[in-house]
C-alpha cells in the first residue's frame, strides 16, 4: 500500500494562494510521465491472470482476482490513445476505487511519489491530444520533463455509448 495519512484531497480547485501541496503517484505510460493524486490510489500491484472480457470496450483490458475481489482492469494506453505496448514487459496496475467497485489502471511502470505545489500546476496546453486532454487535469513542469495530472473519475467515465462501439 502506498497510501499515506498525510495526503490532501485538493486536486482540482485548491486555492493556490495558501501554497497547498498535492502528493502524486507518478507513472510512466507510453513514455510519458503521468501523476495521479495519491489520495485516490489504493495500492499498486502486478496484475496476474487477466481474463479478457469479450464484447467489452477496448479500454477494458479484462478482469482479475485481487485477493478475492474482482477488479476491472483498464488499459490506460488505449484509454489515452497511446500505441500498444510492444516491449514485452508486463504491465503494472494502480488500484483505484469508484463507488464501491475496484479498478486497476494498467501502466508501464511506477515512479516515485512527488509533492508538488498546486500553484505550479499549469492548465492543459490547447494542442494536447483530445483523448488525453479529456482526462488530464493540468500539467506540472518538472526537471527535464512534464508530468500530466490525471483525473481518476474522468478516466473511469467509460460511457455505455462508447462501450457499445
Amino acid at each position, binding site marked *: 500500500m502506498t497510501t499515506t495519512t498525510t495526503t490532501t484531497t485538493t486536486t482540482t480547485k485548491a486555492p493556490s494562494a495558501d501554497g497547498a501541496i498535492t502528493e502524486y503517484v507518478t507513472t510512466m505510460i507510453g513514455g510519458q510521465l503521468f501523476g495521479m493524486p495519491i489520495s485516490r490510489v489504493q495500492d499498486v500491484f502486478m496484475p496476474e*491472470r487477466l*481474463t*479478457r*472480457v*469479450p*464484447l*467489452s*470496450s477496448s479500454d*477494458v483490458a479484462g*478482469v*482479475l*482476482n485481487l*485477493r*478475492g475481489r*474482482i477488479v*476491472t482492469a483498464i488499459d490506460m494506453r488505449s484509454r489515452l490513445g497511446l500505441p500498444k505496448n510492444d516491449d514485452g514487459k508486463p504491465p503494472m496496475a494502480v488500484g483505484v476505487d469508484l*463507488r464501491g*467497485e475496484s*479498478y486497476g489502471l494498467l501502466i508501464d511502470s511506477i515512479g516515485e511519489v512527488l509533492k508538488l505545489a498546486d500553484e505550479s500546476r499549469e492548465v492543459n496546453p490547447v494542442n494536447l491530444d483530445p483523448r488525453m486532454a479529456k482526462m488530464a487535469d493540468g500539467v506540472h513542469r518538472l526537471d527535464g520533463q512534464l508530468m500530466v495530472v490525471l483525473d481518476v473519475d474522468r478516466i*473511469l467515465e*467509460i460511457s*455505455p455509448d462508447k*462501450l*457499445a462501439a
Partner: protein
Amino acid sequence: MDDLLREFLTETNESLDTVDNQLVRFEQDPNNAKILDNIFRLVHTIKGTCGFLGLPRLEALAHAAETLMGKFRDGMPVTGEAVTLILTTIDRIKEILGQLEATEAEPEGVDEDLIGELHHMVEKGMESMTESAPPIAPEAPVAAETAPLIVPTLERELRPGEVSLEELERAFQETAIEVAPPAAAAPVAPPAPVAEKPAAPKAVAPKPAAKKTAVEVDQPEADKVANQSIRVNVDTLEHLMTMVSELVLTRNQLLEISRRHEDTEFKVPLQRLSTVTAELQDGVMKTRMQPIGNAWQKLPRIVRDLAGELGKQIELEMHGADTELDRQVLDLIKDPLTHMVRNSADHGLETPAERAAEGKPEQGTIRLSAYHEGGHILICIADNGRGLNTERIKAKAISNGLATEADIEKMSEAQIHKFIFAPGFSTAAAITSVSGRGVGMDVVRTNIDQIGGTIDIKSVAGEGSSVTIKIPLTLAIVSALIVEAGGDRFAIPQLAVVELVRARANSEHRIERIKDTPVLRLRNKLLPLMHLKKLLQIDDGSSADPENGFIVVTQVGNQTFGIVVDGVFHTEEIVVKPMSTKLRHIGMFSGNTILGDGAVIMIVDPNGIAQELGALASNAHEIADENAAMRAMNAEQLTSLLVFRAGSAQPKAVPLGLVTRLEEVGVDKVELSNGRYMVQYRDQLMPLVQMEGVTVRTSGTQPILVFADDGRSMGLVVDEIVDIVEERLHIEVASGREGILGSAVIKGLATEVIDVGHFLPMAFADWFSRKEMRVSATAQSVLLVDDSAFFRNMLSPVLKAAGYKVRVATNAQEGLSFLRSGQEVDVILTDIEMPDMNGFEFAETIRADQKLSHTPIIALSAMISPAAIERGRLAGFHDYVAKFDRPGLIAALKEQTTEVRQAA
C-alpha cells in the same frame, strides 16, 4: 432506537404473525386446547412486555383480547365472530406497532371501541355459559382442558366476589392445562375464604410441573428452537458468506501449490484445512436457508379474511412448508405467492352456490405445495375453482391490443392463458378490493424472472387452474459447467443445461449446415446451434473443423438450442459475483466468478444467447413489445419451413422437420441408371426425384433435399435452397396438383407447400402404399395429440393426404380442453410418452367422460410390446399402432371410423 424497544418490535411482530395463523387453525378446530394455549401464551407475553415497556394502549388491547381468549379456555363456544374480533384487535396492535416503530412512541388514540366490543363478547359468552351453567359448568372446562376439578369450583366461588378477570386468567394460565394428579391433589383445599390468596400459592405450586410438561410435551418444536437461537443481523451473515468464499478460494490455491510439490510436510494440515473449510462453507450456507413456510405464514389469515369478504368457503392446504431455500430467493417470492393465492381465492374459486350448481363440494380448496427437484424448488399453487376464463382473456387481449382477433382464433388455450402475464392485464370484470387492479401477474412474472425462475400456468375450465413456479435453490452459489471457447474459459449455469453432445464428423451427431446456419439433428429434432466464440466475437479461427465440437444443449423457456464450445472441463459450484458497472451492458454475461484456481471467468447468460438467437424472450419488457409477445405466444404454432425454388420462380416450402439433410452433390456423381437419376450416397444408391419442371444440372453442384426413413434415402432435386423461416403453416388454398399440398403465405410471398408423401413413392414404389391412404376420402376429423413437433409435422400431412381433417394438440391437457370445448372429433390419435399426462391417463380420462367415452382412441407409440398393448387395452384404447407404421395407422383409422359410422 432503544435496543429494548427494537427487540420488542421484532419479537412482537413475529409473535403476531404466529397468532394470526394459530387463530385461523383454532377457528377450524376449536377443541384443540394446544393451539389455544399457544395463542394465549403469545398474547400474554405481548401484554406482559407492553406493561413492562410502558405502552398502555397496547397493553389494554392485548389484555382485552386475552380475556376473551381466556373465556374460550373456559369452554365458551368459539364463534367466527369472536375470532374476527380478536383478529381485528391484532390488526390494531400491528397498526400501533407500526407507528411505534416509526415514531418510537405509542401513538395517541383510544381503543375503547374494540375493548368495548371485546368485553361485550366476553359477557355474551359468559351469559351463554351461565345459562347452561348448572348442569354443564363442571363439564364445560373439561372439554377445553384436562384440569377439571379446581377450575369450576374456583369459578363459582369467585365470580360473586368480583375478582378481577386478569387474576383469574393468570391463574388458569399458570395452572396449565395438564395438571398432573399430584399437583391437582395438593391445591384441592383452595375454596378458601379470601379470593386472592388461593390463587397466588396455586399459581406457584403447580408451576414447575406445568412448565416441565409444557416443554416436554406441549410446546411445538419452534419454541425449543427459539430458546436455543439468537438473532443475527443478515449483513453479518452475508459478510460471513463472503469471507467463506474467500477462504475456499485460498484453500484451493494452497491445494494447487501442494500438488506441485510432492511430499511436503504441509500435506496433512492442508488436508485438514480443506475438510474444515468445506464444513464451514456448508454451515454458513445453511444459515442462509429458511423454510418456505416463512413465506406462507401470512397466507392462512389472508385466505380466511378473503373467504369472509367474498362469501366463499375456502380451505387452504399447505404441503412441504419445511422445504428450505435461500433467504434472498425467499424474499423475492413472498409477494408473488401472496398475490397468486389472492387470485385463486378471488378469481379462481366460485361462491358456494355456484359450486353447488356445478355439482362440486361447496368448499373450494387452494393447495400450496413446495418440493425440491434437481437444483430447483417447485412451488405449485392450485385451486379447484372454475379455471381461467378463456373467452374473457381473449376479449381482453384484443381490447388491449395484444393480439388481433385473427391471431387469437389460431391460438391454443394454453397460449391464450399466457396473456395473463402481460402487463396491465386483469380480467376481473369488477375491481374488487382483493384483486383486479391490473397489476399482478406481470409483476409476479417479473419477480420470478429476476431470480432465474420460470412460471407456468395450466387451467381446465370448470376444474381449476394451477400455477407452477420453478426457482433455483440459491442465487449466491450455482452449479456451473466450465467450458472453453476461443481459448478462454466460461461458466454456463447448469440450470439451463439439458445435456451435452459430442459432435463429430461421420458420427450420428454431426453439425450440419443449412446455408450458413449450423444445426444438429438430435433425436429427430433439428436443433439450432450457436458458436459461443462467434457470439462473443472471439473467434480466432483456430478450430478449422466446423463439424466437430461439444454442444451444450440449453433450454430457456420453451426454446431449446445448442451452444457449440471448443471444450468442456467439469462442473463447479461457483460463487456468483456481480459484474462491474462498466461491463453490465453486455447481455451475454450474467456475472463473473472466481474459480478454484484463482482465475476470474465470465458467467454466460443463456437468456442473453436465446435473445441473440431471436428466440422468444420471457421477460416483461419484451412482452410489452407487441411483436415479441406475439412471437412468444405463437412459439408452439410456428413451424420451421425450408424455402426453396424448384421448377418455377414461385418459392416452395416443406416443413424442415421432415427434411433429413441438405446436400450439394457434384453433378459428376449423378448417374443415370435404369432411366432414373441416382447418386451414390453413404455407400448406398439413392434415387433422385425431380419435381415438375426441374432438370438436373449439367455442371457444378446440384442441391438436393434428402428424406430418409427406415434406412432408405431419397433425394429431391431442387434448383436453389433459399432460406429457413419460422412461420405458422396455414395452407390457405388447397392444390389440385399432384405433389403440392396447397399454397401458404410465407414471409409475405405465396409459397407452394409440397407434399412429401407424393414424392416418396416415386423413389420407392412401396415406400408406403398410397392406395391405402386414399380410401376414405371423407371429411372425418382426427385429433392428433403428440408432444413431439416432429411427429405432428410428419403425421399431419399423411393424415390430411388420407382425407382426414386434422386437429393438433401438443399435450393431453390441450387435447382434453379441445374435446371438452364441444368440438366433434371422430377419432383420437395419441402419443403415449408425454409429459404431465401420458397417453394411458389421457385415454382413461376420456373413457371416464360421458360425452367422450364413445370416441375411438388409437395409441401411437414407439414402444410396442405385448405388455404395453395390454395396458393400452385396459386404459381403453381401441387400437395400438407403431409410430412409424403408416399403412398400419391408416388401416386402423379406417377401421375405427367405419365402425363408428356403422354404429351411428
